[in-house]
C-alpha cells in the first residue's frame, strides 16, 4: 500500500549563472512552483527538508539556518540532508520516511545548488591531509572507471557520443534544461575537446545553478489534490566505502543491492519490461550503459547495446532521461532530486513536451561520491496495491 505521493513538482530554469536571484530566491522559485502544482500554500506545509552537496559550493554553512524563513519553515521542523551527488535522491527518500512514519502529512522538499556563488571544481579537487591531490575534479576520478567498462564490455568507442546526442536532443523538449544545442550531432560531440580521456567536453555535464522541489503528502491528502499524484511505490538507499579490495567501481555492489530492494518493494521482477521509463544520474555519457547493467535493465557487458540499438531513446522500449538528464542540467545538489521529480512528472502525465506516452511506472535514480552512494525510488500513476 502506498502511503506517500508526490503531489507537486517545481523546478527553476537551470543556467550557468542565475545572478538574477539570491540563493533564497532560487529556492523559492522552485518551491513556489511545487506548491502551486500541489494547490497548496506555505502554511499547508508541516515540515521542510532541504538537500544539497557540500556547503563550500556556495560558502554558506548549514544553509537551512539562513533559508528558514525564505522557505516558510519558521515554527516548523527543518532538516538538511547531504550525501554527496546522490543527495537529491537521498533527500527524497528521507522525506518519504517522514510522511510514511506518520510524523508529518505534507512535506516540502527542496534541493539546490548555486554553483556560480563559488567554484565547484575547487571544492571537488581539494587536497586531503596525508593524501596526494590530483586536482582533476569528478571527471578525472571517473574517466579510468569508464575505460575499464569499455574494455570489460568490449563496447564500441561511439556509445558515449550517442548518449550525449540523445540526452541533448531530449533536453530540447524540456523548458527548464540548461544546455540547449539544437544542432547537436555525433560529429559535433566527437570533435569537442577531450577533457579526461575518454570523456569529451560534450560528454560531460554542465555546472548549473538551479533548484528542484517536490511536495510529498500522505494518502488522504494525495487523493484530494487537483493534479494527479505520483504514488511512491518504494524507496531504497545503499552506501559502500570509497576504497576497498572487494569493490567493483564499474558495477558497484551498492547500486545493485539498491536496485534489487527498490524493485522488490515495488513488486517488480523484470524492471526493463515493467518500468515505462527511468531518470537516472548520468553526469558523464558512458554512465548510461554502465547503469543499464547496474540497474538490471541489461545483462553485464550488454548495457551499451541498449544505447546502440536506440532502446534508451524516446522511441525505444526504455526511454532513459527524457528530460535531458544531468548531461543537460546539473545543479549538483538538486540533480538527484531532478531525476526523482522527473520520474514523478512522467507518471503524472505532466512531463509536457518530453512526456513518454502512457508512462505509468518510472524509476528515479541518483548516485554520488566515488559511485558509492545510491538512492532510488519507483513511482506510479496508481497506488501500489498489496
Amino acid at each position, binding site marked *: 500500500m502506498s502511503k506517500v505521493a508526490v503531489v507537486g513538482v517545481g523546478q527553476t530554469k537551470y543556467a550557468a549563472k542565475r545572478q538574477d536571484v539570491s540563493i533564497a530566491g532560487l529556492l523559492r522559485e522552485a518551491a513556489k512552483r511545487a506548491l502551486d502544482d500541489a494547490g497548496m500554500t506555505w502554511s499547508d506545509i508541516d515540515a521542510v527538508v532541504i538537500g544539497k552537496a557540500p556547503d*563550500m559550493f556556495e560558502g554558506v*554553512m548549514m544553509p537551512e*539556518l*539562513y533559508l528558514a524563513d525564505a522557505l516558510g519553515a519558521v*515554527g516548523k521542523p527543518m532538516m*538538511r540532508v547531504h550525501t554527496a551527488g546522490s543527495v537529491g535522491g*537521498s533527500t527524497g527518500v*528521507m522525506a518519504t520516511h517522514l510522511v510514511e512514519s506518520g510524523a508529518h502529512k505534507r512535506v516540502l522538499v527542496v534541493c539546490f545548488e548555486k554553483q556560480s556563488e563559488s567554484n565547484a571544481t575547487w571544492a571537488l579537487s*581539494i587536497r586531503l591531509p596525508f593524501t596526494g591531490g590530483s586536482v582533476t575534479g569528478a571527471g578525472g576520478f571517473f574517466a579510468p572507471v569508464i575505460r575499464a567498462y569499455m574494455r570489460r564490455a568490449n563496447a564500441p568507442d561511439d556509445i558515449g557520443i550517442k548518449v550525449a546526442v540523445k540526452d541533448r536532443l531530449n533536453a530540447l523538449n524540456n523548458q527548464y534544461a540548461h544546455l540547449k544545442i539544437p544542432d547537436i550531432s555525433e560529429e559535433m560531440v566527437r570533435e569537442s575537446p577531450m577533457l579526461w580521456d575518454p570523456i569529451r567536453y560534450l560528454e560531460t555535464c554542465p555546472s548549473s545553478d538551479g533548484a528542484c522541489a517536490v511536495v510529498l503528502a500522505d494518502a488522504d491528502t494525495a487523493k484530494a489534490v487537483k493534479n494527479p499524484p505520483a504514488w511512491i511505490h518504494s524507496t531504497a538507499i545503499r552506501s559502500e566505502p*570509497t576504497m576497498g579490495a572487494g569493490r567493483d567501481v564499474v558495477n558497484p555492489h551498492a547500486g545493485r543491492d539498491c536496485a534489487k530492494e527498490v524493485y522488490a518493494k515495488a513488486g517488480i521482477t523484470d524492471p526493463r519490461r515493467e518500468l515505462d521509463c527511468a531518470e537516472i544520474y548520468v553526469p558523464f555519457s558512458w554512465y548510461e550503459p554502465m547503469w543499464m547493467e547496474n540497474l538490471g535493465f541489461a545483462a553485464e557487458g550488454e548495457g551499451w547495446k541498449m544505447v546502440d540499438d536506440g532502446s534508451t531513446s524516446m522511441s525505444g522500449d526504455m526511454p532513459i532521461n527524457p528530460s535531458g538528464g544531468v548531461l543537460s542540467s546539473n545543479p549538483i545538489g538538486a540533480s538527484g532530486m531532478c531525476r526523482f521529480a522527473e520520474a514523478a512528472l512522467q507518471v503524472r502525465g505532466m512531463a509536457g513536451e518530453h512526456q513518454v506516452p502512457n508512462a505509468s511506472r518510472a524509476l528515479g535514480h541518483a548516485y554520488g561520491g566515488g559511485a558509492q552512494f545510491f538512492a532510488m525510488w519507483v513511482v506510479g500513476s496508481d497506488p501500489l496495491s498489496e
Partner: protein
Amino acid sequence: MRDFNRPVAIVSSASFETPSEPARNEVEMLLPVIQKAMADAGLTQQDIGFTVSGSSDYLQGFPFAFVGALDAVGPWPPIRESHLEMDGAFALAEAIAVLQHDGIDTALVYAFARPSRGELDRTLALQLDPYTVAPLNPDGRGLAGLQAQAMRDSGRFADVPDVPPTYVADGATAVVLAVGDRAKELTANPVWVTGIDHRIEAPALGVRDLTTSVSAKVAGEHAGAAGAEAAWLHTPYPHQELLLREALGLGDRPAHCAAGPMMVGGLERFAQASRAVAAGDVSKAVAHATSGPCLQQNLVGVLEGGAR
C-alpha cells in the same frame, strides 16, 4: 512527534571528547567510539538496519567529511546509510522516522567533529545571511553576547552569566537504537525515546525576541517534555540555560548543561541522558540539541525507562 507505532529505545552509546585531537583523523577518532557502542549492544554493522550521521564539512576544512568517516563503520557489504549536515541529534530524529518502517529494527547514529583544526568563532559567521550579514564577519561569541545583553536589558533574569569564549572541542558520539522487542533483547535497560520534535526560527536576529526560545518551547510541547525530572541541555553558551529552562518549564529541576563539540554536542546530550535513565537515576528525562546562532533551531527528545 509522539506515540510511535513502533517504540524506539536507545540501547547503547559511547562518547569521546578532547580539547584537541591532533594525532588521529576522523575515522581513527570515530572507530573506537562506534565499536564500543556496537559491542555494548552486542551488534555488528551487518546487524544494523539503518546508519545515519551528523557532521559539518566546515569543521573539517574540506568537503565530503562524512564520506571518509564512513570507513569507521565498515560499510561492506553495502549498508542503508544517510547523512545530515546537522547535529547528530537531528540524525537520531531521522533514524526514529526510518525505524517506523517495517523490517528496519536497529539503527546506528553517530556524530563527529574536529573544530580545533580551524577558528570556530570565525567559521560560525558563515551560517549567517551570505549577502547582508556574513560579509560583516560577526563571530559566534559576539552574537551570543547580543543575546546575553538582550536578556540583561529585559530585566526578566536575575543574573545573566558573561559569555565566555566559544567552546571548542573535538569528539564523537555513537548511539545504537532498536525497536520494541528487539531493544529488550539487546539490553536489560532500554531507554525509550517517547517523543522527539524540533523547530526552527528566523535567521535574522532582529526579527526574533532573543530573550525567549519559542522553538524550544514548541518542540518541548510536541515531544511531551512536561513532567521530566531532569534535563540534559545543549548550551553552546551558559546564558542559554536560563532561556531553555523557561521554555521547557523545568523550574528548579536539575539541568545538565554542556556545549560539547559542535555537531556532536546535541547527540551527546541524548547519550548522557540515556545513561542516567538506564541507571535508574531518573525515570523521565529531557534531552535537547540546538543549532544556529542564539538558539535558532531547537530539538527536544523525551527519554523514559521501564517496560514498553
